[in-house]
């Protein structure tokens, strides 16, 4: 556990909410993404993040100094997100182990070169693709509503998002291979 983190956690364990906010903040984006991957809903994921913070704060004294704080938060978020998923849908979680692998490293996913390349590719999106990504990922608009807004059928919007995903992967691959032709 980094020094600053352990100092802040120590303060938070003494009831310092500000210290807890500081120590939690760097993990919030990962927690949101992880929760959304599990529960499958933007707004429910926000609820999960809030619940996770609340539980973590309340149970902070159970966190031993050697423990991995991010991993501990993730474990709380997982349970909350599964419960949220259960209240939203009865569908089983698909590719659970893949999700765990993808979220193994708590560091921001966009921090490596590959992540940067993806960020650049996202920025380069235009037209309907950009609107769909912004609406779905950044504004949390439900697909049905997004389809209405964009004058598309629900099936078409799903297909569009799928095409955008494939397009982004291809874009990242191209950028990375252009940097490292070998």
């Amino acid at each position: 556990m980094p020094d600053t983190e352990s100092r802040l956690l120590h303060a938070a364990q003494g009831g310092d909410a500000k210290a807890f906010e500081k120590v939690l903040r760097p993990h919030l984006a990962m927690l949101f993404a992880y929760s959304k991957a599990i529960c499958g809903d933007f707004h429910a994921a926000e609820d999960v993040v809030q619940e996770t913070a609340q539980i973590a704060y309340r149970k902070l004294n159970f966190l031993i100094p050697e423990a991995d704080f991010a991993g501990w938060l993730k474990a709380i978020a997982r349970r909350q997100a599964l419960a949220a998923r259960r209240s939203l849908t009865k569908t089983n979680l698909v590719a659970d182990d893949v999700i765990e692998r993808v979220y193994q490293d708590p560091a921001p996913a966009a921090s490596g070169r590959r992540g940067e390349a993806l960020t650049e590719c996202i920025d380069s999106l235009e037209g309907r693709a950009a609107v769909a990504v912004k609406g779905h990922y950044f504004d949390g608009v439900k697909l049905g509503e997004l389809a209405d807004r964009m004058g598309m059928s629900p099936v078409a919007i799903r297909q569009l998002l799928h095409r955008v995903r494939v397009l982004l992967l291809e874009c990242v691959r191209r950028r990375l291979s252009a940097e490292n032709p070998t």
Partner: protein
Amino acid sequence: MRKFSCDEARAGLSDALAGVIGRPEANVLEAHLLECDPCRSLAELFFWQDRVLNELAAQARMETLMARVRESLTRTNQVAVAAEEPSTRFRRRPSYGWLVAAAGFVLVLAGVLLWKPASKDNSLTKAPVPDVREPAPEIPQPEPQDTVQSPPEPPPPELLPPVPPSPAVAESNSPKPVPATPVRQPEPVTTKNETPTSAPIQTPPPVRASAGAGAEVVAKPKTLDEAVRSGMAYLRAKASVFARESKNDELLLWTYLQAGVQESDPEVQAALKLILEKKLEKTYNVALMAMLLEDLDRVKYQKRLAQCAQFLVDNQCANGQWHYGDPSIFVESVVVPPLPPKFKGVRKVPVTKKRDGPATGDNSNTMYALLGLRACNDAGIVLPAASIELAAKWWRETQSKGSGVKAPAVGAEGWCYSRHDHKPYGSMTAGGVGSLVICDYILGRDWKKDREVACGMEWLGKNFSVTVNPGPYEHANMEENSQHQYYYYMYGLERAAILYGTEQVGGFAWYPKSCQALIDAQRPDGSWKAAQGGSELNDTCFAVLTLRKATRALPDVATVTPKK
């Protein structure tokens, strides 16, 4: 089972990421991903991409997220402060009565000592003796009774503030923090009127309940979350009593987990450690153990789950039932090979029957054994088909035949505790339906086309009740529609409905009605009064499990693989 091509799987993956995949497709996709390495690699890339996008979105909304976090922390602090300070409602204000009495006594004494009736000396009358009638220092009035104060008008249940209502609850580690947004109710809860309706929950009037020591508190109408939370506060407070009296740590732990208590919780950790080290001895315990381990982590605990399966298979009676169970020496010889490095998901671990159980058992143990076997099956344990067939045969052959309806038509038929002439009743019929559905599911058959299942559902619908265990209870002189094993029945009804896959039993919305009945029956301390033949601790567990819809639904019929 239907299969996906790689293109379909990739589109399905996108739908899964968008949270719009249907249940059958999700199962087919999962099966495809287990077999197809290129699609798994793509899934990993898609999930990574999704992570980046969602993290960017979260960064863009960081202040909103932080504001919500701040809000919940403030609330937590308030709750903590409330828990530390004694409640003003029950705290006695400092009493000055004794001071008044003492002052009065001193004055009277002084008056007696100084009084000289014959004396005419006026100087004495000028003595500085205060007038005892003087109300002198400010005398606080006796504390008014709490019950005299009119309680604030309770808001509708769904808008109740999320803070636990009393310090007792606040002190306990409530299982689920309540979000800033109004509490989400999974279902609209109907009124007590038992007619099919979709009316929203009616706010019951405030109930006055005795809180002991002459005090009275006003019980507020509760939300579902609050009912679960106070039930859990009660169970947590009674955990040691539970361990001593119930000897069913598995039921308590199963309830904890279903109520949302974290796996990292010290109590959960301690109970889990105990359970994992425990010898497998009794059918109920082993079945519940399998359920909770599969729910926690079916990969991590697969070996223990295989041992549970071995125990259950070895304890099956010759007639297909289960009895209370005896240890099986073959449990220790269960081998689960280590995971290959690149292996994904659970392994298939076959279990075979290695010894015979006794001749007969009972339907209660049988229904729990099958719940345990369902969990083992979901954890990749390949169960002997003959055992499941035998169990199914038992349930089919012992279903009542009193309705006079001949196959293939469906009549209201059910089960009692074993094979005899007793009429069917609620708890056993609910258990029978759930058990047969599980047998069909494991054997890859369509339980929606199973006549005996349909007959059982027909019976439950025709005799639908969430206030009594319907039918003649055979262990209490055939008392009709009694309270015997009522909570056990409620949890059985929950399982039957969820496993069968229906929100309606006999045209009744079983879940909202169950919730309403259970919330109404909960006592101020969070417990449920033991039903006849039940125990307060077990019944509180059953009530919480029912409220939490603890049973995991089965995959759609269409996606179940038929077994040859």
